[in-house]
């Protein structure tokens, strides 16, 4: 099982703790997903049309986009034919390999956060309503504070009732300054203020919250473009990161979200939240495959330190580790 071995080796170089977090957070996802696959392999000894149809369903049930799945199935069929694979067990590794391949197809997109060494780094958060932007900002502020960085938060969601207060609670919880104005004020103005404050305080990182908005609301989307312009005018080449937050329970609409937000704000990365539920987060594969936007972080729980850098290897290993272990037996 050379492929898994390779995967395992890269992972073992990383800390045990991180791997465990992934395994733990993804346990629900992994259990249902890989047990379904195992079940499939148990029932189908030989590879035929029905086998592929059921495999298609399992992948679709993980919210991997329909197009991506159809593509994958076609490739698998081709591969099976080429290598003359008859037994389903022989196809097991090919499937995982293909899944990682689809994820990697976007090329070597960096998953690192573009942190400026000696000047202020601005990170802008965008996304639809209720995906967890404010919570993620709280967690991220905590992460950078732990690394000894000086963090300022900008309460740019001036629309939703209670959003400013929510960010303030997070600010005091993790120990970061929050720049705010009255509810209903211009978000671009709040962020402009925050940049000034961050400079005065010699902060390392400024994280900007924005109100959730559905991607088909043109006015709200151009408001985002404006916010981005204001930041760029103050600090050339900023924001250094525009992170789109996507809820792991989201279905096919996640692709449209990524597409439109990317057009309006040049999204540089994705944060996939609520992955500790039963949602599969398969949309990640689809987004990466069709839009070449890398996932940079995943939210694996409600605690302060439940934000983890995303790692495709970890993710796939988390999904398939049971399969791998059963392979070894």
């Amino acid at each position: 099982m050379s492929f898994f071995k390779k995967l395992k080796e890269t992972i073992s170089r990383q800390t045990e703790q991180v791997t465990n977090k992934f395994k733990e957070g993804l346990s629900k996802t992994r259990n249902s997903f890989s047990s379904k696959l195992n079940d499939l392999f148990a029932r189908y000894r030989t590879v035929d049309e029905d086998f592929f149809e059921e495999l298609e369903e399992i992948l679709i049930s993980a919210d991997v986009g329909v197009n991506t799945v159809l593509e994958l199935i076609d490739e698998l069929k081709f591969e099976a034919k080429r290598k003359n694979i008859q037994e389903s067990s022989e196809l097991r590794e090919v499937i995982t390999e293909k899944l990682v391949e689809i994820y990697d197809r976007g090329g070597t997109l960096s998953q690192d956060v573009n942190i400026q060494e000696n000047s202020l780094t601005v990170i802008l958060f965008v996304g639809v309503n209720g995906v967890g932007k404010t919570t993620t900002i709280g967690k991220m502020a905590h992460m950078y504070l732990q690394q000894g960085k000086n963090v300022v938060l900008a309460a740019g969601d001036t629309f939703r009732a209670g959003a400013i207060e929510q960010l303030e609670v997070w600010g005091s919880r993790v120990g970061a300054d929050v720049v705010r104005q009255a509810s209903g004020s211009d978000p671009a103005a709040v962020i402009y203020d925050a940049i000034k404050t961050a400079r005065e305080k010699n902060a390392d990182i400024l994280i900007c919250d924005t109100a959730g908005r559905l991607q088909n609301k043109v006015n709200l989307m151009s408001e985002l473009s404006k916010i981005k312009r204001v930041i760029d005018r103050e600090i050339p080449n900023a924001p250094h990161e525009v992170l789109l937050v996507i809820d792991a329970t989201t279905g096919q609409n996640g692709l449209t979200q990524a597409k439109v937000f990317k057009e309006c704000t040049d999204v540089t990365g994705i944060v996939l939240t609520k992955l500790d539920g039963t949602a599969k987060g398969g949309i990640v594969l689809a987004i990466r495959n069709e839009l070449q936007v890398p996932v940079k972080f995943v939210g694996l729980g409600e605690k302060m330190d439940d934000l983890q850098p995303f790692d495709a290897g970890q993710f796939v290993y988390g999904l398939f580790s049971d399969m791998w272990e059963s392979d070894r037996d």
Partner: protein
Amino acid sequence: MAFEGLADRLQQTLQKFKGKGKISETDVKEMMREVRLALLEADVNFKVVKEFVAKVSERAVGQEVLKSLTPAQQVIKIVKEELTDLMGGEQSKISIAKKSPTVVMMVGLQGAGKTTTTGKLANLLRKTDNAKPLLVAADIYRPAAINQLETLGKQLGIPVFSLGDKVSPVEIVEKALVHARENFLDFMIVDTAGRLHIDEQLMGELKQIKDLSNPNEILLVVDAMTGQDAVNVAKSFHDTLGLSGVVLTKLDGDTRGGAALSIRSVTQTPIKYVGMGEKMDALEPFHPDRMASRILGMGDVLSLIEKAQASVDEDMAKDLEKKMRTNNFTLEDFLDQLAQVRKLGPLEDIIKMLPGANKIKGLNNISIDEKQIKHIEAIILSMTKAEKQDPNILNANRKKRIARGSGRSVPEINRLLKQFEESKKMMKMMTGMSKGKKKGMRFPFM
């Protein structure tokens, strides 16, 4: 990314059978594959899709389609009928307690929109039932959730019952009940914290609240964008609490909303309301047939017509029609027309409701900038009355004046005039076509 509607998909498939006259059972099978993909793309759960397709193909193979001369339409008709049927017949209302207060519990995952919906529902009940509602802030976990509900309450002028975030939700609800009774309030809408359906401890807490308050309604609030996982979520909540209904939120987005079908088929409880916007009056009753059209990507003509009827002034429309026929359409009328269309809401929303709009080149992904419309308005409003009635008198000097007055440029004015002339020509053609028909043009903007 091809989010084509089912209608388009089937048409494509049928191209292959063109000239074949009647179609065979195998052809139906191929069409069923398209139905299946369309539903999967709309996020309907794959298990639900499987059952559904089996049901539809049974009907399709049984004569209806085979004999039909327009098999594609026939398949769509069957699919739509079955979908509407599956999502429940009529819309249902909130069941009211014999003895006030009626208790409504709002439950769901994090970020589904419970707090916002709680406010909207109270607002709606106050309007339709002339009721006195009470909002109960029982989300003690999410930072500032109570604050959010209190702000909404203040905006709406509806009382909010809160004991801060140090008291247990069960106790809050217990005391709220007493408060509601003492103050003779009719409805008590309980906003609970968002929780994962696999979080046993928090699910247990909901059960406690249910046992204590004996609610008349337990509404599951679900994000319309939810994917395949919707069934798991709905099932867990239903198994633990016994839901009485569902509220589908964020339906003003561009999601197909196949989750509606999945949830309905898992819980067998009706979808009672849909959230259609961020404002406090954007909660509407659920219409199964419209949802079916939406899932299939067939546009939502009914909603559009309803909206148009509500906002278009009938007399003005007739007047306009006459003007168009007699070719007396002026820039002033153009402005009126613009104002009427804008009353229908954001233009791109309207376009989305038109069937097939996503197929017309240049119209899918169209983003109409409301600002541009404002610019047009500014230009026309900067003209004199004589100019508006006869734009031909506009010379360079006049145009310069208008440009200054409206803050736009002369080329922009020229563009507008050209567009206006073109649309006049088009109207002449269109009204020419409909001559002889009694009704003529009902909706001048279409």
